[in-house]
């Protein structure tokens, strides 16, 4: 259940995320760092009893595992198995075995239709719960999302909130270079969605946007920085893939700790 999210919580989660990726020797760190604050905010601040969460950007599974660890839903020993043989914590969420993971994702463009199903389910039953779906920005290249936008609006799924991790980078370039959807907010509004634009590393702003009333389905476009908190990763496509060397890991940890000791306007 939600508890107040502190800056220390976010720092601890960011350090544990770096450690987990370093020990496993794997990449996908950039997109995990950009999504971590949002995942922590959704799970610690926003979700209520009866709500559901879908991680559509399955490549941020590491940040989800860390978030679940921070909630006490995964143990330290679980995290040590990340990315290793005989683990449940694969690089993308598994279809079974973790109670908090409703769907195996990783192929993009699946989470929003699935979330529409969960939201429709609650509406048909007359239940109050809300469905939260975290998406990437590159993911909007997938046509299935646009089908789901139409459906959610048509069905009046006011119990659905999509949060888009708008880090501006995708697999082989910036989102502007690969498939420029700017301004995404305008496009989503044209599909009849209620759209909020916020700083995705500003917990209070995300929470305020999420709590504002909305008659129909809502999208929160959360601007983030890929590789957030680690200078040499920030805004760099290669950190979608690269594993950390020991030296770079030490540097990353120093930077995250230093930032935690510096007064800042935002919680991240």
């Amino acid at each position, binding site marked *: 259940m939600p508890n107040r999210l502190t800056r220390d919580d976010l720092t601890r989660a960011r350090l544990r995320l770096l450690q987990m990726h370093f020990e496993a020797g794997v990449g996908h760190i950039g997109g995990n760092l950009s999504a971590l604050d949002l995942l922590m905010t959704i799970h610690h601040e926003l979700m209520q009893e009866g709500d*559901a969460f879908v991680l559509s950007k399955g490549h941020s599974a590491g940040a989800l595992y860390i978030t679940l660890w921070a909630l006490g839903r995964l143990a330290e020993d679980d995290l040590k198995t990340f990315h290793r043989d005989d683990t449940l914590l694969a690089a993308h969420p598994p*279809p*079974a075995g973790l109670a908090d993971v*409703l*769907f*195996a*994702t990783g*192929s993009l*463009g*699946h989470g*929003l*239709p*699935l*979330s*529409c*199903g*969960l*939201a*429709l*389910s*609650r509406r*048909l039953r007359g239940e109050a719960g809300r469905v939260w779906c975290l998406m990437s920005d590159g993911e909007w290249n997938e*046509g*299935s999302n646009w*089908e*789901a936008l*139409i*459906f959610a609006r*048509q*069905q009046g799924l006011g119990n659905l909130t999509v949060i888009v991790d708008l880090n501006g980078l995708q697999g082989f370039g910036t989102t502007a270079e690969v498939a420029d959807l700017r301004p995404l907010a305008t496009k989503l509004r044209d599909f009849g969605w209620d759209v909020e634009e916020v700083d995705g590393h500003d917990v209070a702003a995300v929470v305020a946007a999420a709590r504002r009333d909305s008659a129909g389905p809502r999208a929160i476009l959360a601007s983030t920085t890929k590789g957030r908190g680690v200078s040499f990763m920030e805004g760099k496509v290669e950190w979608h893939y690269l594993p950390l060397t020991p030296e770079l890991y030490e540097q990353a940890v120093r930077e995250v700790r230093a930032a935690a000791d510096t007064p800042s306007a935002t919680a991240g």
Partner: protein
Amino acid sequence: MRTAFCSAMVAVAGRPDLVFLTGDLGFMALEPLRDALGRRFINAGVAEQNMIGVAAGLARDGWRPWAYSIAPFIYARPYEQLRNDVAMHSLPVTMVGNGGGYGYGVMGATHHALEDYGAVLALGGIRVLVPAFDTDVSQAVASILGQSRPAYLRLGLDEAPKGFERPPFAPWRRLVEGDAATILVCGPLAGGLLAALGDLPRERRPNLWLVSELPLDAMPEAFFADVRRTPHLMAVEEHVATGGVGERLARELLLRGVAPRRFTHRCALGYPSGRYGSQAFHRRESGLDAASILAALG
């Protein structure tokens, strides 16, 4: 069969966990179901990927969603949603494909479903039901609802001759007994064969076995006995060879060490002439019409 399907669904519409999604099809056919289900009948629009994703989300929450379209649009367009969202999670979503095989005839190749159940079966864990008669449909629906698993229901037309007493639905049924050969047929093609076999004397008549559920589980001993005692085993299906009943049958027989003296396979060959026409036209081109099948029995 679509009318029989609608009636069968109306009959179970009282189940509170039933939800029906259509990909904008069913005009002049599914209205009674829409009226029976009310809010639980949802036209998801021409957007099959989203429809299957939505169905998986509903099933994850305890619903029994049915998703309906023309056969090719229910499995091929949203194939990754079937794979990732439905099959990987073993969610009890039922895909209903109307007009399996060449069922949509001169509507053309895009509307045919020649590799549907092979593609669906390749995902693992999805039951496939292929009714042959209108009377099968309500029992197939009940069978699907009796299990909590993904399923694909392939609908066609009931082609049984007038006056034929249709046997109760079962995965395996022997419709005709004979000595000349053994045919294993899948789906409504059985109807045309029944009509053609009607008057043949026993020594020139094949056994006609009908399989209505795939993969080939619970194969009856009587079928193997027929395979052993007749000189020719023929698999017949309105589906391509790859992943179809014929391939599966050959595998099952080899695994059991049952060797038919002669094995042939009649299946959909695609569009050999490059021309298009009715379902009957395409069946003739593939040698799937009853006359060609009987002639090939030898």
